C-alpha cells in the first residue's frame, strides 16, 4: 500500500481492469470417474510396499523365534558365557551393553545438545556455519566401521584405553553424535521465534531464554531423536569389532575400564562360529530376541516421551 495502490484504486472505479475470462472449465463425467478410480487405486499401490517390508520382517522374526525356542530361558539370561552351548548365558553380555549405554547417553546428550544450542542460537549465520552444518550432516552418514577405526586410533591406542568399555562407549558416542546434533538442531529450530521474542522483550538474557523457553519446548524433539540414535548405537557391531573386543569374556564387567562384550557383537561371534558348533545359531537367535526387546523398549520410550511432552502452537 503505497502511492501506486492509490492509482490502482482510482482506475478500478472506472472499471478499466474488469476481469474477463478467456477459458471455461467444463465437467467431463467420464474423466472425473477415471480420476476417482485412479485415486482409490493409489491407496492399494502404496500399501503394497508396506506389505513387502512387513513380510520380510515377519519372516525374520519367525525364524529367530523358532531358533530361540528352548534356548531363551532364565539360565540363559543370568548365566555366564561358556564355550559349551548348553551352559552358555549372556548376563555379562547384557551388562556390557548396559555399561555402554551408560556411557553413550550422557556423553552424546551433553555434547550433542550443547553443540546444537551453539549452532542454532549463538553461531552467526555465515559461510562457516554452513560449512560446519554440512559436515555434521555428512558425518551422520559415514559408515560405522570408519568410526571404529577412529576410535581404535584415538581411544584405544593414543589414550591407551585398549578394548575397554570406555573406549567402546566413546567410539559409539562419536558414531551417533552427528545424528543427535542434527536432530537437536531441528528441534531447536522448530521453537517459534515469537516465544523467544516474548522472553527477550521482558528483559531476559539469551541464556535465560534458552533455558526457560527454548529447551522446554525443544526437549521432546531432542529426546525422541536422541533415544532413537542411542538405540542405534546399542545395535552397532562394526565399530566394536574394529576395536578388537575379545571373543570370549568369562567375567562380568564391574567398571568402565574392564574388557567387555556386548549384545550385537556376541551375536556376530556366535554366528561366525556356527560352522564349528551348530547350536551357536540358537544362542545367537536367543540373543537377537533379547536385543530386539531392548530396542523395542527404548523406541517405545521415545514415542511415549514425544506424546507426553508434545505441545501445540
Amino acid at each position, binding site marked *: *500500500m*503505497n*502511492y501506486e*495502490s*492509490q492509482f490502482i*484504486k482510482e482506475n478500478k472505479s472506472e472499471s478499466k481492469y474488469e476481469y474477463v475470462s478467456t477459458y471455461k472449465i467444463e465437467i467431463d463425467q467420464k474423466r472425473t470417474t477415471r480420476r476417482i478410480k485412479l485415486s482409490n487405486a493409489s491407496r492399494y499401490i502404496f500399501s503394497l510396499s508396506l506389505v513387502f517390508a512387513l513380510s520380510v520382517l515377519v519372516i525374520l522374526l519367525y525364524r529367530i523365534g523358532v531358533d530361540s525356542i528352548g534356548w531363551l530361558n532364565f539360565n540363559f539370561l543370568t548365566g555366564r558365557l561358556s564355550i559349551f552351548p548348553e551352559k552358555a548365558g549372556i548376563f555379562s553380555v547384557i551388562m556390557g551393553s548396559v555399561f555402554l549405554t551408560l556411557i553413550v547417553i550422557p556423553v552424546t546428550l551433553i555434547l550433542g545438545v550443547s553443540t546444537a544450542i551453539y549452532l542454532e542460537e549463538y553461531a*552467526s*549465520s555465515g559461510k562457516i556455519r554452513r560449512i560446519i552444518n554440512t559436515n555434521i550432516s555428512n558425518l551422520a552418514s559415514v559408515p560405522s566401521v570408519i568410526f571404529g577405526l577412529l576410535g581404535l586410533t584415538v581411544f584405544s591406542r593414543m589414550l591407551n584405553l585398549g578394548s575397554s568399555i570406555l573406549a567402546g562407549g566413546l567410539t559409539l558416542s562419536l558414531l551417533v553424535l552427528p545424528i543427535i546434533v542434527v536432530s537437536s538442531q531441528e528441534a531447536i529450530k522448530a521453537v*517459534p521465534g*515469537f*516465544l523467544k*521474542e*516474548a*522472553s*527477550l*522483550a*521482558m*528483559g*531476559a*538474557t539469551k541464556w*535465560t531464554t534458552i533455558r*526457560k*523457553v527454548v529447551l522446554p*519446548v525443544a526437549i521432546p524433539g531432542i529426546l525422541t531423536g536422541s533415544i532413537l540414535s542411542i538405540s542405534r548405537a546399542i545395535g552397532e557391531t562394526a565399530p566394536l569389532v574394529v576395536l578388537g573386543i575379545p571373543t570370549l569374556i568369562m567375567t562380568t564387567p564391574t567398571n568402565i575400564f574392564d574388557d567387555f562384550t556386548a549384545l550385537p557383537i556376541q551375536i556376530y561371534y556366535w554366528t561366525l562360529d556356527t560352522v564349528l558348533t551348530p547350536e551357536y545359531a540358537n544362542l545367537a537367535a536367543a540373543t537377537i530376541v533379547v536385543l530386539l526387546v531392548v530396542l523395542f523398549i527404548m523406541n517405545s520410550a521415545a514415542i511415549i516421551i514425544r506424546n507426553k511432552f508434545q*505441545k*501445540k*502452537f
Partner: protein
Amino acid sequence: MSESVRDFNEYKSNLAYDVKNLNLWYGKDQALKDISLQIEKNQVTAIIGPSGCGKSTFIKTLNRMIENIPIVKTQGEILYNNKDIFDKSIKVEELRTKVGMVFQKPNPFPKSIYENVVYGPKIHGIKDKSMLMEIAETSLKGAALWEEVKDRLNDNAYGLSGGQQQRLCIARAMAVQPEIILMDEPTSALDPIATYKIEELIDQLKKNYTIVIVTHSMQQAARISDKTAFLLMGELIEFDKTEKIFSNPRDKRTEDYVTGRFG
C-alpha cells in the same frame, strides 16, 4: 541494580522518549529516515502508516528488539529518561525491563496462565510464592483478565481465546513493572469485541504507563491515542495531537492517508 537503571529511575521529566535524527538500515535498505519525535509520559502515542512504512521497525527500535536481526544498523539517538539507549553503558536487559512489549500475534508461552504472568518477575529474581501469586493477581486484574481466569490459573494459556491470550500478554508485560508498554498492532489478529476490550484496557493503562502503539487501523488511532505519528516510506511525515492529524493535518499526504484515499 546497576547505574544505568538508577539513572532511568531518578530522572523526572514529562518526556518518556526523545528520538533525535534516527536512521536505520536493513543491510543497504534504509527503513527509517531521520526521524525525530518526542513521546510524552502517560500518554498514548499512535504510529500509523501504510504497510512497509517502518512503523513496526520504529517501535522495535525503542526497546532495541530490532537488534535481534543481525543486519540492522542504526544511527542517531533515542533518549530514554535522558539517556541514549544506544549508549554502551546501557544494558538491553535493563532497558527491556523498563520498556515492555506486546506483539502483533498473541504469544503466550506454552505454560499455565499463572506461569506466563510470573515468568518476568521470576527471571528478575522474585522467588517468594505468595509474592508471585500477588503479582499474578494484580497484573491479571490490571489487564482486565482476572475475573475470567481466576478459577483456572493452572490451565494452559493456549486454552484461552485470542483476545484473552493478548490480554494475558499485556498482563505478562505489566508484571515486570515497566514504565512504557510498546504495542505492535496488538489487535490486528483479534475480532471486534476483543479489540474493543483491549482498547478499553489501553485507556485504563495510560494512567500508570506510557503507551506507544503501532496500528493499522486509523479509527483505532483516532479512538485511543493522544498523539499520532504518520510514517510514510521510512519518513516521519507528521506528528501532532491526534485530533489535529485527523481533522486538520498540515501535510497533503497525511490528509490523503487518513481520509482513506490510499493505503
